[in-house]
């Protein structure tokens, strides 16, 4: 594989990160210990009003889970991130993220004063902190993906967290199809039934990767994906 590691970052459990991933660079997410959850939102870095839209993403690809071949699409029909590689097979686009009240109710109080940097973080505040660094805020929160997590939906529509979805060393690669502002955190999935606050770390690897060619798997995964790529490529003519 013709790829070069540009740099790596370790995000500890309950941590957060943001970055403008350059077009055709790849963000690799590595679940170090197994059982991680990585909440992610994505924006066109040049025009953040052009942003991840999970309903558009799911209905275009007739799916309620995300894996290799799927493309995270914006509300303007653009391809933001392509899932080019995935050792897990199912990432959750339904469960959303927790907030401070939910984390305290589930895991008890643990403020900074008492716990210093081992305090309990929550995904909502982490998202808002990282969004704020780009002048974005509550109005810019969108439905997020939970990488490494799985929520099953039964015939009655009931949602059930599927434990053990991701093993230690699991990896998923996200290739940027334009310069993409990625906002992420590693708080526990809000449906994770575990009674203890123990969010897992995720290693991030930023890679220089080849641009997709005409035979690219994600581009050709569905006709809808191809049209989303065409609309995206028009931004770069």
């Amino acid at each position, binding site marked *: 594989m013709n790829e070069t590691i540009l740099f790596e970052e370790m995000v500890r459990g309950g941590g957060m990160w943001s970055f403008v991933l350059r077009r055709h660079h790849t963000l690799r997410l590595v679940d170090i210990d197994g059982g991680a959850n990585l909440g992610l939102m994505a924006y066109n870095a040049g025009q953040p009003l052009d942003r991840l839209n999970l309903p558009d993403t799911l209905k275009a690809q007739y799916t309620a889970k995300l894996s290799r071949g799927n493309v995270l699409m914006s509300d303007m029909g653009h391809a933001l991130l392509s899932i080019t590689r995935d050792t897990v097979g199912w990432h959750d686009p339904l469960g959303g993220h927790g907030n401070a009240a939910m984390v305290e109710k589930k895991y008890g109080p643990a403020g900074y004063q008492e716990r210093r940097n081992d305090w309990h973080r929550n995904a909502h505040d982490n998202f808002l902190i990282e969004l704020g660094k780009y002048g974005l805020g509550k109005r810019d929160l969108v439905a997020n993906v939970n990488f490494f997590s799985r929520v099953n939906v039964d015939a*009655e529509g009931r949602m059930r967290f599927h434990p053990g979805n991701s093993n230690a060393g699991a990896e998923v690669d996200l290739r940027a199809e334009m310069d993409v502002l990625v906002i992420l955190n590693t708080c526990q999935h809000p449906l994770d039934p575990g009674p203890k606050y123990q969010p897992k770390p995720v290693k991030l690897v930023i890679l220089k990767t080849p641009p997709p060619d005409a035979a690219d798997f994600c581009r050709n995964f569905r006709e809808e994906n191809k049209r989303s790529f065409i609309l995206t490529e028009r931004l770069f003519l």
Partner: protein
Amino acid sequence: MSTFILTESTLDPSKAIYDQILPSGEGWLYRIDRGQIFRIVDVEGNQAVDTLFYNAVDVTDRYSAQDTIREQGGIYLTTGTRLMSSEGRVLATIVADTCGRHDTLGGACAAESNQVRYAIEKRWMHSCRDTFLSTLAKAGNGMTKCDITHNINFFMNVPVTEQGGLSFADGVSAGGRYVELRAEMDILCLISNCPQLNNPCNAYNPTPVRLLIWKQ
């Protein structure tokens, strides 16, 4: 096989303080006070009513599809569903429903998503998100595109399979069926009565809906 539980309302339309028809392709932005009851009637059947709710005093606190389905532990909306906000508050509760199932995963149609879903040449056709933009622009209340979040599709059926597939199934609604909500705080309601002509879910035939409000 999934179960539909239908709940009828006892409210009398002649006593409503608001009673209007909203044709397809048109938008509606309206304030509903806490405690008021709001009914949407699918007049002719299988009409998608793309709907968003906001906390009327702080529109950054708005309907969240993910929070709503997670907090009730199920993806379909019906009687008893509490519509949750992005800040974890209850905006409204569904108190009656003669359809039995409503979607909140499928989002709203847009010129651009129609290009992706159907054909690059489809950009010209009218869409819900264009209606949302037009309605907000005319309201002049400071709300813009970033306030157009992931909506409810009243009367639409978008089942998820146990294998994680998503389908746009045949309609489960019919002429005269309705859904009724009680506002749990002062809310703004933004509706696009869907003009979609590319999707069989409305039999390629967008139709009017009737909107009623009762003062409790």
